[in-house]
């Protein structure tokens, strides 16, 4: 398929995704919105498979088949009350997929046209590290959110002294490693970057209380959008950029709206036990239990 044709197809797919999000914001158009989303995804996948660089279809069909079966079975079997943790679990998959895509680009830059091994363009390396780091944070953060919502881990905020200093330190180290990686294109540094990002994902979400988890899930959704956008810049793919920005900003707005609906400050939710040391932490844990935002939403949805 000619490059221009596939760019137009990607554009149509992007518009369908916008209409999907728009549809989902009103009960009258919600179902149509979901169909728009499915159509957009179908166009995106078919267009990519028709790309002249895509030649081996065996693993693609196998992968799509495995994913389709597992995904559909999970979606049909899941209890409606378990919805928030299901979405959290799904997010972790997107995060991991984004890390894998970034790694694939590092090992085979030729397939993406971003240079050759050892001489990948600097801009692409930056986008690659951003995508991998945010993807890894999305992955581990979503796992924690899932575990908290599922009751596998206590829903109480886990706070320890010096926590935010530790997070800050790890954050700085991640940025520093990222910078060296971009300069040297050293593969071990890439994996170190990914590993530390996994760790910081855990540490960021652990101090946030269980009742605030729906907000966190939406925020992680936003992260998964940003990582897709980073991948879009890396691959020079407009669809990934459009959808990434769309999901990134709508996820952030949605988490803000949800905070407002339960009378919580966005900042205090996102930072969890941050800032006020133990006093702040205990205020968070006392404030939590009566709100239970997730179940309130479920109830409304059923009415």
């Amino acid at each position, binding site marked *: 398929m000619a490059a221009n044709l596939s760019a137009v197809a990607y554009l149509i797919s992007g518009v369908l995704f916008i209409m*999907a*999000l728009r549809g989902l*914001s*009103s*009960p009258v158009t919600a*179902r149509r919105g*979901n169909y728009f989303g499915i159509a*957009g*995804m179908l166009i995106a*996948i078919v267009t*990519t498979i028709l*790309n002249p660089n*895509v030649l081996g279809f065996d693993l*693609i069909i196998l*992968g*799509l088949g495995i*994913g389709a079966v597992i*995904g559909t079975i999970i*979606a*049909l079997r*899941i209890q409606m009350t378990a*919805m928030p943790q*299901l*979405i959290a679990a*799904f*997010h972790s*998959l*997107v995060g991991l*997929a984004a890390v*894998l*895509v970034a790694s*694939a*680009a590092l*090992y*085979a830059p030729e*397939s*993406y046209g971003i240079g050759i091994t050892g001489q990948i363009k600097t801009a692409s390396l930056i986008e690659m590290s951003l995508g991998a780091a945010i993807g890894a944070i999305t992955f581990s953060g979503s796992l924690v959110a899932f575990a908290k919502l599922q009751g596998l881990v206590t829903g109480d905020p886990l706070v320890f002294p010096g926590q935010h200093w530790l997070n800050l330190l790890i954050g700085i180290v991640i940025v520093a490693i990222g910078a060296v990686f971009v300069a040297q294109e050293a593969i071990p540094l890439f994996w170190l970057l990914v590993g530390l990002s996994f760790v910081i994902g855990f540490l960021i979400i652990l101090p946030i209380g269980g009742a605030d988890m*729906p907000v966190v899930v*939406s925020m992680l*959704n936003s992260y*998964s*959008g940003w*990582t897709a*956008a980073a*991948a*879009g*810049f890396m691959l020079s793919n*407009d669809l*990934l*950029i*459009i959808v990434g*920005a*769309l*999901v990134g*900003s*709508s996820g952030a*707005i949605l988490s803000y*709206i949800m905070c407002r609906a339960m009378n919580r400050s966005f900042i205090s939710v996102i930072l969890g036990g941050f800032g006020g040391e133990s006093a702040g932490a205990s205020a968070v844990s006392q404030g939590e239990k009566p709100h239970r935002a997730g179940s309130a*939403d479920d109830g409304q*949805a059923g009415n």
Partner: protein
Amino acid sequence: MEAAAVIDPFVFRLAIFVLAIFVGYYVVWSVTPALHTPLMSVTNAISSVIIVGALIAAGPEEISIAKIFGFAAIILAAINIFGGFVVTQRMLQMFRKKK
């Protein structure tokens, strides 16, 4: 700046990126609270458009570590796509029946 009007493609991409951020912002503002969870689940499904990158990675004929990464990413993203849309459909069905 030799040829007067040569703009780096990156700038175009940046423009698309910024405009799409605004679209996402305005599209979601008016969502009704009852639809928060379905909206989250559909955005989640949509974000697995990252599968585009995975498909390209798995595209070459000869087997390589990148192709394996791509294959794994296809499985993960496909779980998300099918699971996300099906579960949204289920939620919305419940929503309509009661109305």
